[in-house]
């Protein structure tokens, strides 16, 4: 299981790109933190998600 934005999902084995696309994220508009470290976009294709990974996927929203 992989923890994504606080939710456990069974997406072990997906690449980061595969997961983000399958979930409907706009890859150009998100930033990803994998196990506490920022994952550069260039590494999305080759990064495979594994059991126990923790992921934060963020984007900009309105704010002051």
């Amino acid at each position: 299981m992989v923890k994504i934005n606080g939710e456990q999902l069974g997406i072990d084995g997906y690449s980061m790109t595969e997961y983000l696309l399958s979930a409907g994220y706009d890859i150009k508009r998100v930033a990803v933190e994998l196990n506490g470290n920022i994952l550069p976009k260039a590494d999305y294709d080759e990064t495979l998600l594994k059991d126990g990974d923790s992921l934060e996927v963020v984007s900009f929203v309105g704010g002051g």
Partner: protein
Amino acid sequence: MNNDKLIIGGHEFNSRFILGSGKYSLNLIEAAVKVAGAEIITLAVRRANTKEQENILDYIPNGVTLLPNTSGARNAEEAVRIAKLARELGCGNFVKIEIMRDTKYLLPDNQETIKATEVLANDGFVVMPYMYPDLNVARDLKNAGAATIMPLASPIGSNKGLATRDFIQILIDEIDLPIIVDAGIGKPSQACEAMEMGAAAIMANTALATAGNLPLMAAAFRQAIEAGRNAYLAGLGRVLTRGASASDPLTGFLRD
């Protein structure tokens, strides 16, 4: 006043109105930016929605500098983390540090803000710390590498105006950085007053978001900020401590 530029971290701006983007419709952002003449707009970073929802970046006109904030951070470490994620979103290296420990008054934690400023300035960010107006803290922020100082006028979202007026004036007088009044400015007249005092710029969000007509209020703020800036540059006339001073000649009266 073409030569009157606001310079932040080596970047030049003509507008002195920093616009927030919270608490109103994405459809109003473009109009607000244009009417305000704003060249800087603030944003927040949050967990992304998986559904292909509209993204705020699609609503912000090209050429506007994005100023992500670190809202949600409760300490320096969290602020640094949010700032780095914001930079990874690929929209520049400006960051407004916002660190709060309580949700009732939303007051900034000055000590943690100094720590975050130092880390982020050393990492190449243009750091714009939101702070409670305290001269010693402002000096520490400058030494830590802040590009501006952003003191609060009154609590965030309160629209209560310049409750900290005299302390902001001290920062303007003593700190050799742009002092940008952030939080609590509720009316154009308050923005104008802060600019007359010598503030470098005004940041406003709630005053617009809660106005009856947002674009019209954006126009009013723009005019007020420009008026206040011009008044500051012109140099305000003196105030008498007592008595009066005639505006008309004291000779040639029509009497014997």
